[in-house]
């Protein structure tokens, strides 16, 4: 009997043989490198622009543009796009095999459906993790090398938070971890849709649309939306930002993390339940 570990290896092999898998990595690389080049060339002007309103009332000293701040800016920019990159790949994992017919070949092998599905899910999780790691390497390490260390200045609508350089590393690591959790929810959601669909376009488009719709609902301060916001997973996928508050709202982070985890379990459970009962007629 083939082990789950061997199945994950086989799935990963298929996964990394597809050109589509590399789109996310290429996109991140291009975006990060472009922003880094731009900030390297003209970072001072960008910093002046960001602190324009503050400098009218205060004199800002000792807060130089640095690698930690570049990383924070990149995270804010890219975390919005990354769910789309994840959905692009996860939405195709099962439905793509149904569309091409290879699922028939797979399901006539002496391996349980649950194992097959879990191996695919784990392979997509590995992809998501590597995407976050790649973002971390490019956005954090490369920025530190290019711009040097320094304090992180977080500009909010009603306050300015300064995180000391020595206090920033664990916050970044935690933020990356929670961002991984958030992307895993998107991954499991697109994966679940992929189990229901007969073609790969539908789950990709639907998962992207849901993320965009939920995000839009989350940005409007309308009482009706306020009531449903806590139940939208997109409300909790931005909780990584709370690691750059002072003091950190640990309760909020824990609550959101548990909420995200519950969604991962829910979406995975529905996927397995449906996949095990599905008739493959195509």
């Amino acid at each position, binding site marked *: *009997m*083939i082990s789950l570990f*061997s*199945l994950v290896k*086989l799935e990963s*092999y*298929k996964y990394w*043989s*597809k*050109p589509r898998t590399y789109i996310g990595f290429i996109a991140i690389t291009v975006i990060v490198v472009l922003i880094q080049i731009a900030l390297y060339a003209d970072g001072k002007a960008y910093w002046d622009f960001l602190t324009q309103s503050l400098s009218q009332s205060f004199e800002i000293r000792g807060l130089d543009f640095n690698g930690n701040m570049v990383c924070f800016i990149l995270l804010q920019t890219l975390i919005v796009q990354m769910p789309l990159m994840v959905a692009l790949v996860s939405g195709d994992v099962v439905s793509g095999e149904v569309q*091409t*017919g*290879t699922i*028939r*070949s*797979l*399901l*006539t*092998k*002496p*391996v*349980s459906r649950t194992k097959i599905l879990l191996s695919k899910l784990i392979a997509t999780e590995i992809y998501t993790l590597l995407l976050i790691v790649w973002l971390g390497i490019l956005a954090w390490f490369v920025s530190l090398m290019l711009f040097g260390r320094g304090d992180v200045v977080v500009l909010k609508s009603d306050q300015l938070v300064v995180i000391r350089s020595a206090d920033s590393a664990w916050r970044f690591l935690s933020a990356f971890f929670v961002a991984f959790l958030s992307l895993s929810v998107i991954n499991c959601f697109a994966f679940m849709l992929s189990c229901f669909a007969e073609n790969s376009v539908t789950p990709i488009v639907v998962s992207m649309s849901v993320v965009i719709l939920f995000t839009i609902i989350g940005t409007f301060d309308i009482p009706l939306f306020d009531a449903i916001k806590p139940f939208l997973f997109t409300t909790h996928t931005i909780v990584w930002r709370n690691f750059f508050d002072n003091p950190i709202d640990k309760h909020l982070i824990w609550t959101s993390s548990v909420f995200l985890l519950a969604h991962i379990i829910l979406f995975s459970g529905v996927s397995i339940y449906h996949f095990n*009962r599905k*008739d*493959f*007629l195509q």
Partner: protein
Amino acid sequence: MAFVEIRNLVKQFGEFKAVNGLDMDVNKGEIFGLLGLNGAGKSTTMRCMLTLIKPTSGTITYSGQSIDEHRAAILRNIGCFVDRPDHYNYLSAIANLNLSARLYGCYPQKKEMLEMLELVGLKGKENQKVKSFSQGMKQRLGIAATLMHNPELVILDEPTNGLDPQGIIDLRNLVLKLKEEMGKTVILSSHILSEIEMIADSMVIVHRGKNIAQGKVSELLSDKEIVMTVETDNAEALAAWVTSAGMGFAVAATLPGQLTLKAARAQLPELHRVLSASDIRIYNINTRRKLEDLFLTLTHSDDQPVLAR
């Protein structure tokens, strides 16, 4: 006990019964043909046999073991493709073979895989991506993948689909080789009736989800009615002559220059005697009892389209 036994298999989609109480027995070491019109329930039956579809009711057993209870153990001994062999187009032929074998828990050496590719006529194509393969080549690779783990039973759904005439001949020879040299049991469905007739030992005719005839191909083809076509100058006169003989020979059709008669096998010597006794010129007599005739006789009804000849 048959190697594969299907009893009272039913698969219902809403109100529609795709398979409706099908029984089927396949013996070890034989080539078994599954024959039926499009939509008769052949593919659904095969999908049920391979657990791609869950039957509504009925049992499927392999060597007495139920597929529901011993799925993994049974599937380990089956090599198959359903509808058409599907491969990962972005991988090479050898990578596809390797992937398929590993899912059966086999770790074949490169040499073994190359030998298998040679067996199906894909020598030298091992590193070529499958997306560049023709349908015939994909079909051959599909056969190779079904055999890579050395299964006891090979199930092929419409294996000649998309093959050119030479490909069909090659496949026929390969299937015969599987049985005769490798001792495998083969179950296949085909829309080309002559394929079943030429290579199958036993067969079942499926119609509207039911088994309407099953047995050895030779037995099914030898009973009851023989069709005789006679080439003559005057078909009408010959038809009148045969009828006037009063032996109960049935005139099936009279065309200019051709008379078609039907008779039981035992009546053939007498029919030949009656024909030779006539003064009408006869150029050729052709007797046939082909699978197509049997198939059409059994499945034809007014509300059912007949398979195109």
